[in-house]
């Protein structure tokens, strides 16, 4: 990877003035925490957390063949994007390997916005361009928006103060175009935390104002700004795999447990390879597990059964909500059923773990 200057999001100065600990993250300078990962995590679960998501890659696809183009590139059915539903889909190469996982918004006929991972943005853009047989316009719109996520049970109450749309009307995984703080805004009821919440995209120069207002309005509700550290523990508890960690090009959606996002009734890049692999049977599968002995699993730690290696941990953490140690890892299919036990090798010691249902945490509705 070439070393370039890390970019600042429109909220960089706001993070600095909040005394955030700032780290480079896939080419961006982002807060890892403001005060404490656990405090920020707990605020998001019980009240509200405010996140800078300006680093997420944004691509606009327009043109007559936009729908057909997206149907060909993505495994999920893009027609599900009608009625303003956000569709989550893996993006696969010809071997069925996962290039990225993407959120797709259909703004109007022949016009879509794709929210991709920061780490894979350049790779995705190159892939879109090299597979553009439908001659659509593919535009990098990263610099057109700043992004904020407000997550947690109090988020609707806080956001409603400055949002024109009636949030009661906005259902989970839907979006609308509205005004926030009087600014044009792309707003969705979505997130990466397992809580009710919203993600909003506004012009870069308006982002700091919206952020500041949400901080101030949110204060009496118990809202805290939350960094990448809390984002990671929240998404793990919520059972959301992270691209580049829990899945990559060496895995197809079958191994990653993403079969429900693969529509085998349509044609798409990678379909043949996925069908072949399905016929042959997969050799590993992503599972969620809990440690049954006190130890924290971390990325790369070996997983063994009866002294034989059966896989490895991809993500692991102490779960602030459950107060248990949890993780994701790939194991052989015969060891993947809920309740199965295996060992994780942690600091050269064998520690018992057990496959559990994912998500680890489910919010009360």
């Amino acid at each position, binding site marked *: 990877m070439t070393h370039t200057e890390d970019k600042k999001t429109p909220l960089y100065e706001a993070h600095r003035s909040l005394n955030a*600990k700032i780290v480079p993250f896939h080419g961006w300078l982002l807060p890892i925490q403001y005060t*404490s*990962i*656990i405090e920020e995590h707990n605020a998001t679960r019980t009240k509200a957390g405010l996140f800078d998501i300006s680093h997420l890659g944004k691509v606009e696809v327009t043109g007559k063949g936009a729908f057909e183009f997206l149907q060909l590139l993505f495994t999920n059915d893009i027609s599900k994007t009608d009625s303003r539903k956000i569709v989550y889909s893996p993006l696969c190469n010809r071997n069925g390997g996962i290039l990225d996982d993407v959120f797709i918004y259909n703004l109007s006929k022949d016009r879509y916005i794709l929210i991709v991972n920061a780490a894979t943005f350049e790779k995705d853009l190159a892939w879109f361009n090299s597979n553009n047989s439908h001659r659509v316009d593919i535009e990098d719109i990263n610099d057109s928006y700043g992004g904020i996520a407000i997550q947690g049970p109090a988020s609707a109450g806080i956001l409603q103060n400055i949002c024109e749309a009636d949030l009661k009307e906005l259902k989970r995984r839907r979006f609308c175009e509205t005004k926030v703080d009087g600014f044009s805004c792309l707003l969705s009821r979505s997130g990466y935390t397992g809580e009710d919440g919203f993600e909003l995209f506004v012009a870069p120069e308006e982002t700091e104002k919206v952020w500041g207002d949400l901080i101030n309005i949110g204060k009496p509700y118990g809202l805290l700004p939350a960094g990448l550290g809390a984002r990671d523990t929240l998404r793990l508890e919520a059972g959301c795999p992270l691209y580049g960690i829990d899945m990559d090009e060496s895995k197809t959606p079958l191994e990653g447990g993403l079969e429900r996002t693969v529509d085998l009734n349509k044609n798409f890049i990678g379909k043949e390879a996925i069908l072949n692999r399905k016929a042959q049977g997969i050799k590993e599968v992503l599972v969620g597990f809990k440690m049954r002995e006190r*130890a*924290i699993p971390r990325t790369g730690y070996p997983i063994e059964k009866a002294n034989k290696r059966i896989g490895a941990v991809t993500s692991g953490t102490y779960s*602030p909500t459950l107060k248990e140690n949890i993780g994701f890892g790939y194991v052989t299919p015969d060891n993947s059923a809920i309740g199965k036990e295996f060992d994780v090798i942690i*600091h050269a010691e064998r520690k018992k773990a057990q496959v559990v249902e994912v998500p680890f945490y489910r919010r009360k509705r």
Partner: protein
Amino acid sequence: MYDLEKMRFTKTHEWFRVEGNIGYVGITDHAQKEITDVVFVELPNLGMEFSKGAEAAVVESVKAAFSIYAPVSGKIVKANSDVTKDPSLVNKSPYEEGWFYALEIKDKSEVDSLMTYKDYEEFIKTGAH
């Protein structure tokens, strides 16, 4: 009350407080901030012996695991069970309640080789980790 001026420090961010022939070990305020919320501490058993620089304990934060090295050679004579019960003490009180273990100092000259607080502050400032 602790006195930073009387304590010694390592390049791996442990502090060392000498009381007679015993030395207490913990991590610095700078280190606890870098590590983020500590959620798990694994301490050595009493009687275990370590040579200077050997891994004697493990601290885990939400983010990652960190090794705690023995600042000098010696035998473990105390372990702080409060910190294993409440690992957040490492963040809340790194120089007092958040200590990890105490060891019987084998060779006093090793203590002299450790950094003073002034040296350590300089060490942090120069951007070394």
